[in-house]
């Protein structure tokens, strides 16, 4: 026993944590942006497609959801370059992985959102002479987005936490910064206390901000 807390070394290397936090956020934002595109395209395609396409999309979703994220991260970073001739950095590799990963979860979110759009709205759109494309863009998608907004913010926050997995391929995000300080200063308890606080404050701040956005959009209804 007799462990005395000493945060001096943490503050001296705080740039590793701060820079790491910003990178974590960046990875999460880029990944969810790409994930939303993947999710939207596949969900819209799914609801209007035939059996074959549906099966393929469902296979993608089920595969990603039932495999550990860390394995997918390794697979894309160490596995894929051995079969195709492509060179990419660890952060790029991670963003690709997390985008494909979040895309699979968002297909499900958007698909159920599309199904939750009241039938009457689509009929109304048809009645005033909107084309199928106009009905999709002006009626179905806006309503669906409003319905799925809470699920979207939850996905974003869990993606933010998932960015910690990027540390296993040495992407210098927050968890990597914490490990660096852990191994170089041995102020173990201190560094994980500070890191935990940083994840918590950021996560709950995001949650609070996103709930405000949700309320704003609900009011517009």
């Amino acid at each position, binding site marked *: 026993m007799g462990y005395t807390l000493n945060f001096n070394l943490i503050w001296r290397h705080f740039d590793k944590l701060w820079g790491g936090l910003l990178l974590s956020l960046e990875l999460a934002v880029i990944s969810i942006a790409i994930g939303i595109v993947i999710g939207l395209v596949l969900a819209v395609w799914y609801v209007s497609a035939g059996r074959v396409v549906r099966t393929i999309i469902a296979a993608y979703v089920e595969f990603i959801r*039932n*495999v550990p994220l860390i*394995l997918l991260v390794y697979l894309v970073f160490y596995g894929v370059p*051995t079969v195709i001739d492509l060179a990419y950095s660890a952060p790029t590799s991670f963003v690709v992985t997390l985008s494909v990963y979040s895309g699979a979860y968002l297909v499900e979110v958007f698909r159920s959102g599309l199904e939750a759009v009241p039938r009457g709205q689509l009929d109304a759109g048809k009645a005033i002479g909107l084309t199928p494309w106009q009905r999709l863009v002006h009626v179905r998608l806006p309503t669906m987005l409003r319905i799925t907004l809470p699920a979207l913010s939850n996905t974003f926050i869990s993606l933010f936490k998932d960015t910690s997995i990027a540390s296993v391929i040495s992407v210098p995000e927050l968890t990597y910064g914490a490990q660096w300080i852990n191994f170089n200063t041995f102020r173990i308890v201190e560094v994980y206390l500070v890191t*935990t606080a940083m*994840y918590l404050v950021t996560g709950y701040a995001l949650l609070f901000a996103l709930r405000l956005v949700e309320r704003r959009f609900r009011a517009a209804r």
Partner: protein
Amino acid sequence: MLSQILYALPFLAEGFAVTLWVSLLVVVLSLIAGVLLGVGLVYGPAPLRWAVRIFSDTIRGIPILVLMFFVYYGLPAVGLHLQSFWAAVLALTLFKMAQVVEYVRGAVASIPKGQSEAAMAIGLTFRQRLTSVIFPQAFRRFLPPWINGVTDAVKGSALVSLLGITDLMQAVNQVIGRTYEAMPLYILGALIYFAVNYALSYASRRLERRFAFIRD
């Protein structure tokens, strides 16, 4: 390539057994501890409720990986020495516990107040109200999210590989380290995880339907 993979299969099977063992321990331990804390969160005295609330919100707010490193590297610093296996199980259990606490809270909260008032009116004691009225009904609400979360435990167990425990994930990495057959082995590993989790989620859907006979 194929012969190398066949040669590695027994080794992967050993890792797979560790994955299953870790998952099972985490699922069972977190269920017991989580239900106790969850009941404490709903019916306990105020200090206990606050403690459980803070515990749950903190644990759910940080990445499992950070929690695992904190437990693994941090406990020895305060004089607690656990084998890496048990440190990993402890961290994963704490994480799952926080989820179980929320499932319990949600399940109990979903039972209409009239139920416990009616039980009170016919003179049941507090314990009788819980065991004969609230819990049997809350159980059906608790089961579907909890079973869905079992696959998360299997997926989360892959993180123990980072503490040097030879689970399936680590076994795959070690075989790749010797054979350099990265892609086939990662895909094989992914398929094994997929098979287990898909079977689990299939079973959970069946069970969910089995318990869906009562809706409000």
